[in-house]
């Protein structure tokens, strides 16, 4: 039965908006995802500011492959597979830090910051010099690239360039953070585990249907307003390869009003909601960088597959798969280095109150995601499709002279549908070549 599911050629029905729920728990399908999605995609690894000096490293994952992002002696960021060439042991156990080399704690093979194998204990006595050290350096990501300080890596050498991969939608997503100034990651990545499939977490970032209910208590106590949590004007932007942005959108008039009222101001208090979501966009420069539509998008970008950027571009959450039924959430917090220390302090405190495992919003997400995941295991509950059809066929893609096509609408599931549709295309492709040929272009017309 499990294998049959893989052989089935449609998990998501683009006509009906119905989705085979078993994609959230099937173990074989999960293995396919690791190969066809995570090993193929460009994955966010870390931000430049986390590893400023030679020898600084940050340990992360591409799917279930453990990687180390490290700045080598030539100031190049390397993304090395954290697995010794001898027996596979990890050569780096710390989450972050600074080192001169990566020393394997099993038998002592030692690797340079760029992955070169420096030394093998017993090279002459035991190996009788009969091993070629140059062949046994650490494996490396096929390509490493950096978009405005955001380090990405792919394990697939046939992948297109990072810029091409991101396309304008992915770049717009990252620009939501990068445009905020000379940014850096605030020290401290919040990490926790949720017993959900990673796609349920991704699905949720486009979900402006759930806040009113899931986060009702946060609204009742005043940490979030109805307007924040249930914005009626929604803008959705869909990009090639599964990138998408969904959430509140400003109308042209509202944006112009903000520019008129605030265009001359420089944000001072970092945690003023208005400043954090709106005022920083109120400049010609913002319009130029983000584009005439992008500057009005206040939604949640997802860089396919699993990198979510929050509203206002202050934080990002990486959803790392840990088997079909478990996901790690890693929160990165970005701040403009130049804001005054008090504003920074206020901002940092503020974001810790919203997201992360103790954040008053995010507290209530995990259990819903876990129980939705669990339902996909049941014989009957798993066989019943998930309904992803909200608003399907009722909206129109608006073409903009700038090329920034978008959908202006109400609460909807366009972002989710696009994600699952793209996910299916990734899963069916057996190489970058076939994915490039067969993936859906950004939609036009009625949607």
């Amino acid at each position, binding site marked *: 039965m499990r294998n049959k599911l893989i052989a089935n050629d449609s998990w998501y029905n683009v006509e009906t908006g119905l989705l085979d729920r078993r994609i959230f728990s099937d173990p074989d399908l999960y293995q396919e995802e690791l190969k066809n999605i995570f090993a193929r995609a460009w994955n966010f690894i870390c931000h430049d500011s986390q590893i400023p000096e030679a020898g600084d490293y940050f340990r992360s994952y591409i799917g279930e492959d453990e990687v180390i992002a490290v700045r080598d002696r030539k100031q190049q960021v390397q993304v090395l597979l954290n697995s010794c060439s001898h027996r596979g042991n990890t050569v780096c156990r710390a989450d972050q830090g600074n080192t001169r080399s990566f020393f394997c704690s099993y038998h002592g093979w030692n690797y340079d910051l760029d992955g070169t194998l420096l030394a093998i204990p017993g090279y002459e006595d035991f190996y009788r010099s009969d091993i070629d050290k140059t062949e046994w350096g650490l494996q490396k990501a096929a390509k490493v690239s950096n978009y405005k300080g955001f380090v990405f890596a792919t394990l697939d050498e046939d992948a297109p360039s990072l810029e091409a991969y991101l396309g304008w939608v992915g770049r717009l997503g990252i620009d939501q953070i990068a445009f905020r100034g000379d940014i850096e990651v605030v020290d401290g990545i919040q990490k926790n585990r949720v017993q959900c499939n990673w796609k349920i977490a991704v699905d949720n970032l486009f979900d402006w249907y759930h806040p009113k209910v899931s986060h009702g208590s946060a609204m009742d106590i*005043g940490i979030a307003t109805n307007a924040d949590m249930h914005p009626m004007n929604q803008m959705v932007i869909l990009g090639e390869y599964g990138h998408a942005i969904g959430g509140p959108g400003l109308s042209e008039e509202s944006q112009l009003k903000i520019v008129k009222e605030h265009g001359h101001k420089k944000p001072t208090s970092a945690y003023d909601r208005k400043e954090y979501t709106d005022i920083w966009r109120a400049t010609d420069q913002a319009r130029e960088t983000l584009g005439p539509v992008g500057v009005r998008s206040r939604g949640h970008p997802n860089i396919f597959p699993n990198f979510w950027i929050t509203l206002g571009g202050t934080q990002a959450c990486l959803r790392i798969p840990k088997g079909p039924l478990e996901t790690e959430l890693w929160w990165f917090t970005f701040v403009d280095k130049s804001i005054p220390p008090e504003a*920074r302090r206020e901002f940092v405190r503020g974001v810790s109150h919203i997201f992360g495992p103790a954040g008053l919003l995010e507290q209530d997400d995990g259990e819903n995601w876990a129980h939705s995941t669990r339902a996909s295991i049941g014989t009957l509950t798993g066989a019943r499709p998930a309904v992803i059809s909200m608003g399907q066929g009722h909206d129109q893609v608006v073409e903009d002279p700038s090329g920034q096509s978008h959908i202006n609408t109400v609460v909807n599931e366009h972002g989710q549908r696009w994600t699952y549709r793209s996910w299916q295309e990734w899963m069916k492709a057996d190489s970058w070549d076939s994915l490039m040929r067969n993936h859906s272009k950004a939609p036009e017309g009625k949607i």
Partner: protein
Amino acid sequence: MPDPVQSQKEMLTELSPMEHLLLQHEVEQFLYKEADLLDRRLYQDWLNLLTDDIYYWMPIRRTTTGRNTDSEFTKMGDMAFFDDNKDFLEMRIKKISAGNAWSEDPPSRTRHFVSNVKITSVTDTEITLDLNFHLYRTRLDSVEDSWLGRREDKLRRVDGQLMLAQRYIFLEQTLILAQNMSSIF
């Protein structure tokens, strides 16, 4: 200027063994009472034990090499799991009791333990403690979370009563294995 740390230490050594014993007993009874209120979900009563200027903080911990342990915990002002004043703790309590805070409704069942309580300094009004804690939470039928760590609590005597003026929580976990931390530590 006398070194404040030094003078506090002196006050501690000035206590007679009997005074120390009584104080130790008093602070432990306070901690037990506080734990009991949380476990019985008497959150308003718990709030009443906090001074208005309480600061409640749990930094993020990382696995580091032995050489890098100075960066094991995030510093105050950088990212944290809890970074709360009294107003925000009141929000947390309001939320737990809201009836639609799904991470706590159905309510979790918790058991708070404290042990290894050491009085590290004493002034006229404040007592600083270093202690170990274990917070066990279970909810629904199979969720189990267990958080252990060290705390630095500061108690203040206000009108003869002890109140909690500061709580720093240093967890043993780096990656939080729980789906959320909606409990009060």
